[in-house]
């Protein structure tokens, strides 16, 4: 299994990766990207099974990245992870077709929940 983790903050990526590892130990290969553009490129080249996407990033933000990824793969499985939990943000991501929204700081239980729901384990 391949998982793509996208966030402009180093520590945020590390936190997300740690939660993922707590959930499924080393059963997945983790790929990282630090903005939406990199995420798009990585998605094309590595074709991950699951994406954890932060929303506020420079160059290309999470919303745009989700949109673009969905354009090349309408079945892409994307979970947004964000500090911005305003209702507007959540609704917008839902419209874009994400399968989940996790509030920062992320914890491994939520990750487990989604992975089981998706039947990826």
């Amino acid at each position, binding site marked *: 299994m391949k998982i793509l983790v996208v966030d402009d*903050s180093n*520590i945020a990526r*590390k936190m997300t990766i*740690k939660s993922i590892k707590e959930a499924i130990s080393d059963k997945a290969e983790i790929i990282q990207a630090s903005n939406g553009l990199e995420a798009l490129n990585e998605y094309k080249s590595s074709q991950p099974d699951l994406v954890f996407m932060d929303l*506020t990033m420079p160059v290309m933000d999470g919303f745009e990245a989700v949109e673009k990824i969905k354009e090349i793969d309408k079945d892409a499985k994307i979970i947004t992870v964000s500090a*911005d939990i*305003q209702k507007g943000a959540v609704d917008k991501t839902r419209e874009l077709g994400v399968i989940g929204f996790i509030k*920062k700081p992320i914890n491994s239980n939520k990750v487990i929940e989604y992975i089981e729901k998706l039947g990826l384990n």
Partner: protein
Amino acid sequence: MLENILNEDEKDCLQELINISYGTASASISEILDSFATLKVPRIKLLKSLQLKDYLINNDSSNDIQFVVSQIIHGNFSGENIFLINKDSAFKLAEILNEDEDVNIEEVSDVVLEITNILSSATIGKFSELLDTKVSFQAPSLEIIDSLEDFNENRIKDFNEVIIISTILEFDKLNVKGELILLTKDESIKKLKEELQKILEEY
């Protein structure tokens, strides 16, 4: 320079924690106030305290009467929150929150103090939770000044260098805007550095 006080990783960690704290705070604030309020993505800056006044003046073009609220934070993480809002916004805010078209200056003062307390508790409360440290807040106090030119620099003379975390509180479609500034000083910055290191070591 911030770079000399905090290294790249620490800065990154601080920014992330602040984003999380202020992001969560936004939601709490909307819930409490029954209205849609957003906190803009917080910006972090390091300044010498004497530069604060210039920084404020540069950020606000209005020469309007300003409500300046200060709230002191005690604890392992200590500092001061300053909330700035001009007279027009303050009055509009009070009218909305008190559901009263005719508010007097005492009522507006009360509302501005209350908002500051809510902002402080929401943002710093969450922040201290993430740092696993306890804080407590003093009752906020208000000063009304004719314009930012009158901002009293003596109040912050105890601060040598300050980390400024500023964000704008905006009420959607209502043209109500206020700025929240967190000041933290020398010793507290040192303690902050230690806490950030602790967190970085976990990952």
